[in-house]
């Protein structure tokens, strides 16, 4: 598995797209800092970008990589190798290289701008950790989609639909539900609703740091326990890990059964 991981990783490192992705974040970081002059405000803006863009790029890139390396995969399958290690290796290769582009691309301008002396360092590291989690989650989901669909166009379609659903439509439905049932106690429902969507989950994680004063304005013991203590942070991280593991397990399961 490690060998395949290495091949995928180096393959991606040489590919144009990794550089484009890296350059995009580098540029974003530099421009944000140039325009804002304020680290903590730049972190807020970055949060908005990361929560929307990282999943999008993760899904598209994952699907794209799977389809484009299909012939190589078939070649590997002819060798005496475990199927799970082939696909997990590829998956980790993609996810790791994307994460690296993200961390380096955003990290370099911020470090040059004096991140280590700033109080925003914790917010910023939280942001990067969340970004990394999102990359792993959405690449895994993308591999799932690609494994289940032989048709490239269909695969891409589903990938974009998945992103659209989780990034925007889910929140719309969520909001509608909350407003429709506003007469009932909703604090548990709203927390559970957040847990079920990795994008919402990472958003909440960052809210915990940035908007805690507003979040505590709501009357509710469950809310208070969740947001007022480290409990919320811990639960969110556990849920994010679950969100990585579930699709990965399905990759292993699906790849074993798939007929090539």
């Amino acid at each position, binding site marked *: 598995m490690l060998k395949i991981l290495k091949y995928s990783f180096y393959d991606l490192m040489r590919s144009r797209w990794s550089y484009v992705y890296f350059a995009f974040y580098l540029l974003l970081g530099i421009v944000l800092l140039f325009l804002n002059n304020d680290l*903590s405000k730049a972190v807020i803006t970055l949060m*908005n970008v990361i*929560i929307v863009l990282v999943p999008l790029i993760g899904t598209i890139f994952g699907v794209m990589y799977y389809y484009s390396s299909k012939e190589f995969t078939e070649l590997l399958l002819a060798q005496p190798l475990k199927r799970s290690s082939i696909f997990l290796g590829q998956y980790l290769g993609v996810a790791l290289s994307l994460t690296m582009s993200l961390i380096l691309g955003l990290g370099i301008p911020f470090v040059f701008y004096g991140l280590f002396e700033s109080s925003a360092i914790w917010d910023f590291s939280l942001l990067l950790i969340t970004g990394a989690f999102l990359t792993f989650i959405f690449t895994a989901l993308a591999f799932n989609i690609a494994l289940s669909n032989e048709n490239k166009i269909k695969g891409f379609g589903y990938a974009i639909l998945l992103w659209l659903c989780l990034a925007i439509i889910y929140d719309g439905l969520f909001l509608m539900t*909350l*407003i429709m049932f*506003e007469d009932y106690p909703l604090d548990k429902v709203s927390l559970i609703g957040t847990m079920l969507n990795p994008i919402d989950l990472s958003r909440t994680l960052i809210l915990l740091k940035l*908007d805690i*004063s507003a979040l*505590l*304005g709501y009357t509710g013991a469950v809310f208070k326990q969740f947001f007022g203590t480290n409990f919320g942070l811990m639960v969110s991280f556990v849920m994010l890990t679950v969100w990585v593991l579930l699709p990965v397990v399905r990759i292993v399961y699906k790849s074993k059964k798939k007929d090539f």
Partner: protein
Amino acid sequence: MKFKLALYATLIWGGAIYAQTIEVCNSCELSSLKSAIAIAKDFDTIRVQKGTYKEHNIVVDKPLTIVGVSYPVIDGELKGGIITITSDNVTVDGLFIINVGTSYTEDYAAIRVKRSKNFVIKNLVLEKLFFGIYIEKSSYGRVFHNKIIGDAVAEYNSGNGIQLWHSNHIEIEYNYVEHVRDGIYLEFSDDCLIKNNVSAENLRYGLHFMFSNNDVYQDNTFENNGAGVAVMFSKHIKMLNNTFKENWGTASYGLLLKEINDAEIIGNTFEENTIGINIEGSNRIKYKNNNFINNGWAIKVRGACYTNSITENNFLYNSFDIAYNSKVNDNIFDKNYWSNYTGYDLDKDGIGDVPYRPVKLFSYIVNRTPETIILLRSMFIDLINFSEKVSPVFTPDNLLDHNPQIKKITW
């Protein structure tokens, strides 16, 4: 004029000639404050030496100066009120007063001032108290540089740090109050000045006004109280250069205004409160040059607030700038700096070319269904906020800042 000066000089000199100093210490002839007061004549000075004096219900009924030498302890042994001042021209200085009794029928205080004028209470340290300094029907007094440290746990069985009742022209300066119910409480007290105090970690309010008019409070710090300052049913209050910090919780405000008219709120800083200012039924208030930084809601307008002007303030990184619960607006927002402003300034005059709408649709939704707060900063919320911005349906459509500043305002 010269005659007057001469008269004063005679009076002061005369006083100095007749005034005596009476020493009190544990091993002296006079070993209690009470006995010293009993033999003292008007305008005498009582010097209390270091030691512990177990006394309560000390009544100061003559114009005396009571000075503690290196903080003698007056221990009330939880039996009731400790010092009561009933005479004019009394000064109490440098005592350490502890163990005030708790009662549900009487407001026992470490120092109570009753119908007195020209009193000075300074350099006291009060601990383990019920009420700290209780001033009733008195005027022209000074409460200066005291430290009041309570141990209040519940609102119903705790008292206030400094309480004024029907008292006018009192100056409260450089005091430090913590862990009581209300740090400083004014009821029916007019023309008072509250300056340079720190009020922190109190159960209810840092500073509380009720039916008190023409008061000024400035340069105070209110930190981590149940709610910073509550100003209720009062007129012509000036609030200048205070700091309101970290008042977090479901009913926590930096500043709560209820039925307040003609006040001025200038130069204050509101930082990291759940709600910076909560306004209800308050009219003709001038908000100018305030900083609102990292609050949940910078200003929450509950209703019946008319002709307020909110100008030249900085709104920095608040989750919500302004929240309204109605569609009617009669307040003026002008020339503020909003960190959430996204417009441009093509003519480079420092004023944004597009008006800013401080009320977001989402703040209206959160008002209706508080649980939706969990969707804060979601992309979907940004989308609906944007559509509301383009054509307001739920939020007041005339609530606009026509001259949003491009740069943070300094003053």
